[in-house]
């Protein structure tokens, strides 16, 4: 029982990070029906910049403090937000009215550009990230379950950001505009919504969340390298689809489920089959409910 609880805690903390990344995929899909494959690499950029700021440009990593960690996070958010904005402005906007496949290919192009450009600029070696004043090993024990402070921070920050995101989407003007654009961009434009600005905002918001996820992830797993966005990006994308792409709560649920599935399969079934079985479960869910767990089964507009 204790063991099961332990696996659940570990799974949830991994899932919370998947969920944060998944939000970026799902929001962009919501407004543009575009799968922004570069999102996982924006996440990587956040982690790399965090490493540079904490270990290369300053000696923050040697004497980490909460204030420093906050500073690093804010700076990463700034850089990732800007990158997200620039990718949309110069990559996707000129293609907005061309077939959707063109944007998709551009997204893959940006993804590869960031990955291999990152290898050239940052160097291909993995590096140790340490911006937070707690070590991943520090934990407290509750009912025999070891809960690390970093896991707790990851889950807490993720929850906080998800609530904030809900407030932005449902309680602010820009959130209303986002929902309007996601419903129908041309009608929203006719109603006086500045579609370009809304889309830019969506990209910035998603990228900022990816930056936070990057700092949390890099603090928990300590390793940053230019290809680190690949797997988490892919898994977050799957999480977004699982939850129902375009649906914000769905992304959160999908992320958590995926993290849990990975952990439970490797602990109770077989670690060799971890990804295989976790993804097979996802396929099954999608076969039964193609629009995802929380997705609304909307008919394709003709």
């Amino acid at each position, binding site marked *: 029982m204790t063991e099961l609880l332990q696996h659940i805690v570990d799974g949830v903390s991994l899932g919370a990070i998947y969920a944060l990344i998944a939000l970026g995929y799902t929001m962009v899909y919501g407004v543009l029906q575009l799968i922004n494959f570069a999102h996982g690499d924006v996440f990587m950029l956040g982690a790399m910049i965090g490493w540079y700021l904490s270990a290369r440009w300053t000696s923050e990593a040697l004497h980490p403090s909460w204030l420093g960690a906050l500073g690093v996070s804010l700076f990463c958010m700034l850089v990732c937000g800007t990158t997200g904005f620039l990718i949309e402005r110069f990559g996707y906007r000129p293609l907005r009215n061309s077939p959707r496949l063109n944007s998709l290919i551009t997204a893959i192009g940006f993804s590869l550009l960031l990955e291999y450009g990152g290898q050239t600029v940052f160097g*291909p070696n993995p590096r140790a990230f340490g911006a937070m004043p707690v070590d991943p090993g520090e934990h407290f024990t509750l009912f025999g379950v070891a809960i690390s402070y970093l896991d707790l921070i990851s889950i807490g920050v993720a929850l906080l950001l998800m609530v904030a995101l809900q407030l932005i989407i449902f309680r602010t003007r820009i959130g209303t505009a986002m929902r309007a654009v996601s419903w129908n961009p041309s009608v929203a434009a006719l109603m006086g919504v500045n579609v370009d600005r809304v889309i830019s905002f969506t990209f910035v918001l998603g990228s900022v969340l990816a930056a936070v996820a990057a700092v949390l992830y890099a603090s928990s*797993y300590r*390793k940053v390298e230019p290809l680190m966005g690949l797997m988490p990006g892919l898994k977050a994308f799957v999480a977004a689809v699982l939850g129902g792409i375009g649906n914000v709560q769905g992304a959160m649920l999908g992320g958590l489920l995926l993290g849990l599935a990975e952990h439970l399969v490797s602990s109770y079934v077989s670690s060799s089959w971890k990804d295989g079985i976790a993804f097979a479960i996802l396929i099954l869910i999608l076969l039964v409910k193609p629009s995802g767990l929380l997705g609304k089964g909307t008919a394709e507009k003709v």
Partner: protein
Amino acid sequence: MRRLSVSLVCLLAAIGCKKEQGSGMVGAGAKGPIVVGEVGSMTGTEATFGTSSDRGIQLAVSETNTAGGVKGRQIQVMALDDEGKPEEAATATTRLIASEHVTAILGEVASTRSLFMAPKCQAAKVPMVTPSSTNERVTQVGDYIFRACFIDPFQGYVMARFARDTLHVDKSAILKDVRNDYSVGLAKVFGENFKKMGGSIADEESYSSGDVDFKAQLTNIKNTNPDSLYIPGYYTDVGLIARQAREVGLTVPLLGGDGWDSEKLYEIGGDALLGSYFSNHYSVDDPSPRIQEFVVKFKKAYGGQVPDSLAAQAYDAAGMLIDAMKRASDLSGPAIRDALAATKQYRGVTGDITMDQNRNASKPAVVLKVGKGGKYEFAGKIQPEGAAAKAEPAVERGPKKTEGNTAPDAAPGTMPTPTTMPAMGADSAAQSAATTGQPQGVPSGEHPKR
């Protein structure tokens, strides 16, 4: 667009020229440099493998060139990057053979990638020497494929020996990378030998390279209470695994293979790795004069950088190839192949190398201990008695293979393969005596302080 096409034309012209030069060389023979191909992961997650090897090869080649080259001709290395991808390694090999007309090919480090390259070299009858692919199957591809290192069974055997005899481990667990031939191979042989030596395997778990969360597997392993955990993976993952092992409360020594060998291992794993052991091809702390001389040369050539074992092996692989080219009757593929196959007692920095009938190098292995500050301390040297896993009798009859830090044990009767036995005998004993002396742990991989 016009500019693009102009530059394309230039590019094509350049390639054309190169091709011409290459084919001309093959025909004329006597003039121009001998082109040797190299394939390595210069970028990608295992980039230090490729760059270290490249440095070793370049050093060996530049020494040869300074000394007058081979058969009066200079050697030129044509190095291609495979980004750590097997398909790229295959493509690069094809390019080296088809358009650059290389005389021989050096590479790759990873067995997975060497296995993609070997069939191409075999088909074209271009000798290939891999510096550090330890998977058995690599040289089984054909008679043009050689290696300058020992094979997986030996590393698995070495660690099983060390765990049983020196660490007195009764029950070990295994955590292997299922996406990696090397890791799966080492895990298998370690398990077989460990059981044969009277130990038991408590649990065997897997991960996929690139994973970042290993807590589920480690928790399972911890619940079986092993005395040690064998993780024959690469440094990129092992550092994280070590950290998480300590996080879930698994405190036993971690054991591994040469894939651990990188300064990055400790940078990521930190003190979680203290007291862990791994088998390796050489140690910079090994007091043998040959090794110390190499370390000095390497540091001088590369701004004080300490050569890791991949650099040393690549240096030996290149040296072995050059040696064979010198002995070969001509520079055709078959002639170099025959000369390589006849390699006996080549005095490499990583030990005396003799090719066995399966084109695998037979030579000793060292065991290193991870100490404070990421220093790799020399913990022992294990000779290739009964090297291959198949040689059961040798395993049974070797009562004290782990010499640890003490006297060398190179009794001719326990040497590797019957064919190489006479040649190995005396010289090897002297060599071992020179190399196994003190276990002193001088700082090895200088830890980059960033």
